[in-house]
């Protein structure tokens, strides 16, 4: 059992991080906190993907010798590049989302002068909007 837990510890880490992020996204009332949670959440997923790519005993997927070598390339000695590629995209998406969300945040602050969800809801109820 312990072996099992230890052998996959990176997955546990990512699950814990994801849960922290998800909890912040749903449970926190402050909007900035929600966004922080969102970032944690997304990077946890990225961690998961990166973990997929790991190959024991392999090195970074950059071939030395300018790639003109005609000798057979040992696949086992290079880490799986595909998850990295995907995650580059995912990181970009996450920063773009954050940017849009922060812009929305400023619009919200301009309107309600607060960033606490419950206060905003109260204001909205009062104004009937």
């Amino acid at each position: 059992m312990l072996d099992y837990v230890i052998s996959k510890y990176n997955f546990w880490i990512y699950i814990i991080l994801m849960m922290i992020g998800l909890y912040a996204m749903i449970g926190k009332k402050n909007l900035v906190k929600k966004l922080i949670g969102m970032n944690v959440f997304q990077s946890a997923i990225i961690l998961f993907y990166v973990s997929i790519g790991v190959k024991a005993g392999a090195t970074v997927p950059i071939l030395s010798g300018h790639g003109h070598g005609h000798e057979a390339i040992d696949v086992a000695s290079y880490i799986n590049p595909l998850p990295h590629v995907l995650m580059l995209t995912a990181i970009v998406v996450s920063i773009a989302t954050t940017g849009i969300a922060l812009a929305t945040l400023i619009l919200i602050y301009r309107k309600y002068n607060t960033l606490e969800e419950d206060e905003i809801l109260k204001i909205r109820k009062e104004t009937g909007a």
Partner: protein
Amino acid sequence: MKVIALIAVIMTGALLIYGVEDMPGWGDPNSPASSYVSPQYIQEATEKTATPNIVTAVLADYRSYDTMGETVVVFTAAIGCILMLRKKRNGEGG
């Protein structure tokens, strides 16, 4: 809200942990992810694209359509921020 969050989190977490059980071990070179599509990238990418950095080769050639999408995402975010926030700055508008 907090309770709902907690429930959602615990449910998701349980599901994730449930799924982990059948996953290949960490760093296993024979896992499907490492043995199905990616070996060919490692073997032929450098030769076919003259790019030793396989990540770059895959990013900008094999899956360049993805990367174009990614660029468009960034572009979208920029235009989105302009749309949401920007007012005319003295005589100069985006």
